[in-house]
């Protein structure tokens, strides 16, 4: 199996506070990798380091074969990112957002045209294509930002709590999009604190107090802790947590 993310003792300190402590794991091509943990466990910090938004304090990592310290610009060409906060431009239309982000990833005019038609078709947003993004309901916005994040066909897409505040039906639809992306060969790295979503992942890791406490397939984890749901796995692991927001 191809390793697309490899980290070794990756650490981030803010002064005395260790947000992420010696994180070590591998993620393989085409995988849906769930990154779980309570609020404040250090998920977002870890993810920001992998995306090149934040410099690690120590440890090493390679993303798509590129070094996290020296080749951040190479990494950026090969990843997509969808942040916790909705971050498309609300005062641009759907089409304009797609064109903009596609454009800065270097898609040609022809590709842009094809891609945007295809994307709007898949999302069923033909009527809204010329509407301001700010006017869309939250669920639509999330689906749109995901589609924009994989517009340039990255090797890996990072999703930071992509379904926060979204209704269950839309969440289900959102996961369909994720599967589709994974089928097309994109590796998906997703953080969430919905435990039902954890079940959709191929493998998951559990972060508690900045450290990875467990890493395996959902089935194996349930077996290991001798419980029937991921909720219980999470509860067992997180019970000992010292920090929470």
């Amino acid at each position, binding site marked *: 199996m191809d390793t697309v993310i490899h980290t070794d003792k990756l650490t981030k300190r803010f002064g005395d506070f260790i947000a992420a402590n010696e994180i070590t794991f591998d993620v393989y091509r085409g995988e849906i990798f769930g990154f779980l943990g309570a609020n404040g466990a250090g998920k977002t910090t870890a993810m920001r380091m992998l995306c090149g*938004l934040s410099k690690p304090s120590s440890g090493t990592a390679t993303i798509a074969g590129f070094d996290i310290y020296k080749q951040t610009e190479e990494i950026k*060409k090969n990843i997509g990112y969808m942040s916790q906060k909705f971050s498309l431009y609300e005062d641009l239309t759907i089409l*304009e957002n797609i064109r*903009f982000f596609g454009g800065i990833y270097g898609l040609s005019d022809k590709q842009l045209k094809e891609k945007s038609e295809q994307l709007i078709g898949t999302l069923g947003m033909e009527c809204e294509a010329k509407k301001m993004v700010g006017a869309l309901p939250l669920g639509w916005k999330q689906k749109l930002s995901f589609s924009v994040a994989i517009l340039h066909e990255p090797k890996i897409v990072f999703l930071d709590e992509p379904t926060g505040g979204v209704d269950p039906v839309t969440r289900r639809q959102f996961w369909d999009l994720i599967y589709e992306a994974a089928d097309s060969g994109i590796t998906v790295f997703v953080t969430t604190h919905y435990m039902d979503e954890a079940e959709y992942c191929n493998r998951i890791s559990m972060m508690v107090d900045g450290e990875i406490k467990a890493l395996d397939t959902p089935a194996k984890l349930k077996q290991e802790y001798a419980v029937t749901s991921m909720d219980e796995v999470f509860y067992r692991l997180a019970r000992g947590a010292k920090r929470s927001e």
Partner: protein
Amino acid sequence: MRTLKFLLQKEFKQIFRNKALLPLLFVVPIMQLLILPLAADYEIKNINITIVDHDHSPYSHKLISKITASGYFKLANYVIGFNEAFDDIEKDRADLILEIPQGFERNLIREDGAAGQTDGEQLYVAVNAINGVKANLGSAYLNRIIADYNADVRMEWAQMPRFNLFPTIEITSSNWFNPTMNYRFYMVPGILALLVTMIGAYMCALNIVKEKEVGTIEQINVTPIKKYQFILGKLLPFWFIGIVVFTMGLFGVGWLVYGIIPLGNLFLLYAYLGVYLIAVLGLGLLISTYTETQQQAMSIAFFFMMVFILMSGLFTPIDGMPKWAYVITQFSPVTYFIEVMRMIVLKGSEFANIKTHFLIMVVFAVVLNGWAIYNYKKTS
């Protein structure tokens, strides 16, 4: 280049879609340029004078009418006691009191040519000096009128040839570059410079900080966009808008409304403006890299703008400042631009005249932008 094209498209769309921003960018500056020069007129005229005349003689009357006919003074009150006059000063009805003592005429005329023993006749002037400039000029004007009057009296009473032996120096003044001493000619280019500065620095700083606040900057930071591309994408639209506003102000208001026709080379003026705008936008950029919220950016920009504008030399002369303050003015790009505006527009200066100014502005542009780019981090 392609990336830049997409960035620019996006910025222009966002700016022209913002209905609250557009009037601020284009209408408010023009309004200010129309109103401010009318309000900011420093010329001292219509000084209110109250006269205390203890003499009531033809000579005192002659002096009074000479004062009121001068055009500088308006007779606010004509009273018989000093206390009444002082009341006028306290209530701001008068700026100046002239007191003519009793026996003014008698003492003045009695003193014929042969008996020039006394030291002369005394007049008393009291000035409300809270506004020092006005007080200074007012008393200087009054002194000049009294001196003229004095000369008249002397001519009348002493026409013997020997008095012509007194040497007199005639002073002729010519006011170059603005012979009518029109204050608008001075204020309009200066205020235009200030407006362009404010638009550049504020809008640029706020625009970037807004992306930080909303979080879209994160999305940009994970893309392969280069620092310089992102910054150029932010600078160019405001650079362009600055040039448009300047053009509207220079031709639409300066030329059409106030009749100010730039004397110097327009190409030189715009070249300087171009460099200046880069420097000012760099300042805005720099502010944005040090702030997290729009409120902070606004406060800091306000602080700098206040200092720069007050010390720019437009409202008070730089030549009167103490050394430390003078040094500060030399570190403010605004000072140079206002000076260059005046030089090119009013005096017709050429490149050879302003080459030092040009060089300094290039240094400002490079340092401010370099510092901002250095400080702008895609990663934390």
